[in-house]
């Protein structure tokens, strides 16, 4: 195969208390799509950040085009032709969409930014991803998934040798993923080398040529994708066998008409967000929401929690009409909402894992009734074990955790409040397959135990697998609700989402 375009050898990186990387080798060839695989916390993102100079390297060499390099920061890496989309969407939401795509390399004429050109090119670029946005609008007005696409658009526009995509697809739906893959193939044909990180094995098998597998910061192996089966891959990643997925297949498919309704929305709506809709969630029922990106799933869910105020219709909890004044009021009715955007709406980054986990429970108790420390430790330990949060030290700042582990922390925060209605917005975002199966099992268990769940995921299989009933949204309207019977399968659901009937 000739010499590698990019080679990293013997890379070690130590964080206080954790050895994130230990003697890792990594090779990337021109024109290949290379998967970087591993569990949550395996060191994938760290390897990428070490490459682009976000972190200093403790040991090891990097060579690009055969020449040794070491970047002092992302700026140099970009200049050297490494274009990166980091795991957490790292954009400036206070700027416009167009600017987020072009900032740092705006089209200029005599040093003057040409806004018109920039807007035009941004629109064109987004159209390559089949995205039609107002590029002058502030990025913060768009959902996380859109932001992720904007970040991708930014990365693919550069004249790069190497494109690094760290979990770019974690909140994208199938259509968007297809668009992304189409573009990745184009780039590959142009000779660009792509590093791709994802926890969706199907995606890996669809697009990647080779893969490097990490476990606990160590290199486990480097393989051709074609040489290795999914099961082998999983056992290499986690170091043991996994056979959970099957068991869940036939969860549910019961009728809930007799069960008491926990929450009922009557013509509930909010102008500009979701049109008035009717939706009932029964005790023990899992209601899935499906729809395209921006169809309004998140916004619908937020109305149940009072995160946004509804301006029409009414909400009944246990058959009694209530006005949702805000999250706290919802929590008093035992409703929990786990946001899709863990960075801005979820975690308090400088607080420890423990503090983040007990935050909602503590908020519900009020500041005068602190949760006894022993009880805190018990609860936290329980969920660290149950969700396999790594590293296991509850006193670490949550900022230092890997993306997937942060997501688990957020989930734990709401699980310990023991709600009657749990709203999960993309709870498995960025979570490895082992933990994802664990969470899915948890959802089934909880609903069997009588908890009502509103479940949102970009991954339709997951929605299908878990839900008893599926609400389909389209253009901010709840168009239909399907009982999840045998008649409903992936194709049928996809079709409904597309056609709206």
């Amino acid at each position: 195969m000739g010499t590698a375009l990019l080679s990293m050898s013997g890379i070690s990186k130590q964080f206080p208390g954790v050895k994130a990387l230990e003697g890792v080798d990594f090779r990337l060839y021109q024109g290949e799509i290379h998967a970087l695989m591993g569990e949550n916390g395996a060191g994938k993102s760290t390897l990428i950040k070490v490459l682009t100079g976000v972190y200093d390297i403790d040991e090891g060499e990097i060579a690009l085009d055969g020449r040794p390099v070491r970047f002092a920061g992302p700026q140099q890496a970009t200049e050297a032709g490494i274009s990166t989309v980091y795991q957490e969407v790292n954009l400036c939401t206070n700027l416009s969409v167009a600017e987020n795509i072009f900032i740092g390399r705006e089209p200029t004429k005599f040093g003057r930014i040409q806004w018109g050109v920039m807007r035009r090119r941004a629109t064109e670029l987004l159209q390559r991803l089949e995205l039609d946005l107002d590029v002058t609008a502030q990025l913060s007005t768009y959902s996380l998934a859109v932001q992720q696409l904007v970040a991708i658009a930014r990365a693919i526009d550069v004249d790069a040798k190497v494109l690094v995509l760290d979990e770019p697809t974690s909140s994208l739906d199938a259509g968007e993923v297809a668009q992304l893959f189409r573009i990745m193939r184009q780039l590959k044909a142009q000779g660009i080398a792509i590093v791709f990180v994802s926890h969706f094995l199907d995606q890996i098998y669809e697009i990647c040529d080779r893969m490097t597998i990490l476990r606990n910061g160590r290199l486990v192996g480097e393989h051709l994708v074609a040489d290795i089966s999914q099961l082998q891959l999983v056992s290499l990643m986690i170091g043991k066998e996994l056979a959970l997925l099957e068991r869940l297949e036939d969860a549910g498919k019961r009728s809930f008409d007799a069960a008491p309704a926990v929450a009922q929305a009557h013509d509930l709506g909010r102008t500009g967000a979701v049109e008035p809709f009717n939706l009932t969630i029964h005790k023990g029922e899992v209601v899935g929401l499906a729809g395209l990106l921006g169809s309004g799933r998140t916004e619908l869910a937020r109305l149940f929690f009072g995160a946004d105020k509804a301006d029409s219709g009414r909400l009944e909890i246990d058959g009694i009409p209530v006005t949702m004044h805000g999250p706290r009021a919802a929590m008093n009715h035992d409703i929990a909402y786990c946001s899709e955007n863990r960075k801005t709406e979820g975690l308090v980054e400088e607080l420890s894992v423990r503090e983040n986990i007990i935050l909602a429970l503590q908020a519900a108790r009020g500041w005068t009734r602190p949760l006894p420390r022993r009880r805190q430790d018990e609860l936290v330990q329980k969920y660290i074990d149950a969700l396999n949060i790594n590293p296991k030290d509850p006193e670490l700042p949550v900022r230092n955790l890997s993306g997937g582990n942060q997501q688990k922390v957020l989930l734990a925060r709401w699980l310990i409040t023991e709600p009657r209605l749990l709203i999960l917005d993309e709870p498995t975002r960025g979570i490895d397959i082992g933990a994802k199966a664990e969470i899915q099992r948890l959802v089934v268990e909880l609903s069997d135990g009588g908890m009502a769940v509103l479940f949102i995921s970009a991954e339709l299989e997951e929605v299908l697998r878990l839900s008893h009933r599926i609400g389909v949204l389209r253009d901010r309207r709840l168009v239909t609700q399907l009982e999840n019977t045998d008649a409903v399968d992936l194709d049928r659901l996809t079709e409904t989402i597309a056609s709206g009937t």
Partner: protein
Amino acid sequence: MAAITETRLSITRAARHRLFWPAVILVILLVTNVFFSGSFFKVEFRDGHLYGSVIDILRASAPLGLVALGMTLVIATGGIDLSVGAVVAIAGALACLRISGLDDQNSVTGVLLAVGLALLLSLALGVWNGFLVATVGIQPIIATLILMVAGRGLAQLITDGQIITINSSPYKMIGAGYWLGLPLCVIIAVGVAVVAGLIVRRSALGLLLESVGGNAEASRLAGIKSRWLILIVYVFAGLCAGIAGLMISSNVSSADGNNAGLLIELDAILAVVIGGTSLSGGRFSIAGTILGAVIIKTLDITIYTVGIPPEVTLLFKAVVVVVLCLAQAPKFREKFQRRRPSAPAPQAPQQKVEVTA
């Protein structure tokens, strides 16, 4: 050899502590004084109470420490309170005005009433700030700027622009009196700090404040009603400033609406920052703030003792502040330390870190 590494390790461990370097600077400042005033550390028992430079430093730190204490919690929520200086002036002015109107200025009940009234007003001013920030939603710096400007006027209105001199021994106790040989103002300040520390850390208040300061939107979605918390911290800051105002006016038995607490907000914020609390909110340290306040006052008193001429005082302060924050900055120490190890063993320091971690 083993013993040496052992002490080495415990020193490195101590050096890791956030407050290690500020404490070192404090010690250096204190020791500097000895070269200029041999009896600097001498503490005698005189007239039934402790007397000495160190006691002076503690007494001078008490009001600043209190103000900074309130400021710490405000800053933890991501706010700032510029009005503390004005509240200091108002509290002192009102108390002295009331006492000067008493028939018997030494009447304890009369003094207590005046003190209570002044503290009540400070609380009310805190509520005002908190209301503007939490309910109206004005940026804290501007919300409190209003009271900073108008409050100073209010203080002068109360004193009619004059200095109100009083002669009340009960009132004088607050700022200049002693109890069990210890300065009462220090006891009060430490008491308030300890109580605040206990309340904040034993209840969930501290956690919730840090959460609101760290990520307001996430906190809201976690069910924290930040409005009340923010109100509480501004009220507490007002109260602390009020007590400090009483101390300052009591210390000189007079209320100076114009000058009392002038620029104290700057010193207080500095104390908070030296103590390791970030101005952008989140994690806070009460102990750090108190240490910061003591450092600032020690610096002042060092300047007097060493006899630094007023013209260069500010230059001296600039240097100390720069040294202080560099010493505290992990990035600076990193750069400094990386250069030090001799060439043959680049591995060694790395290894050590691992051991102590």
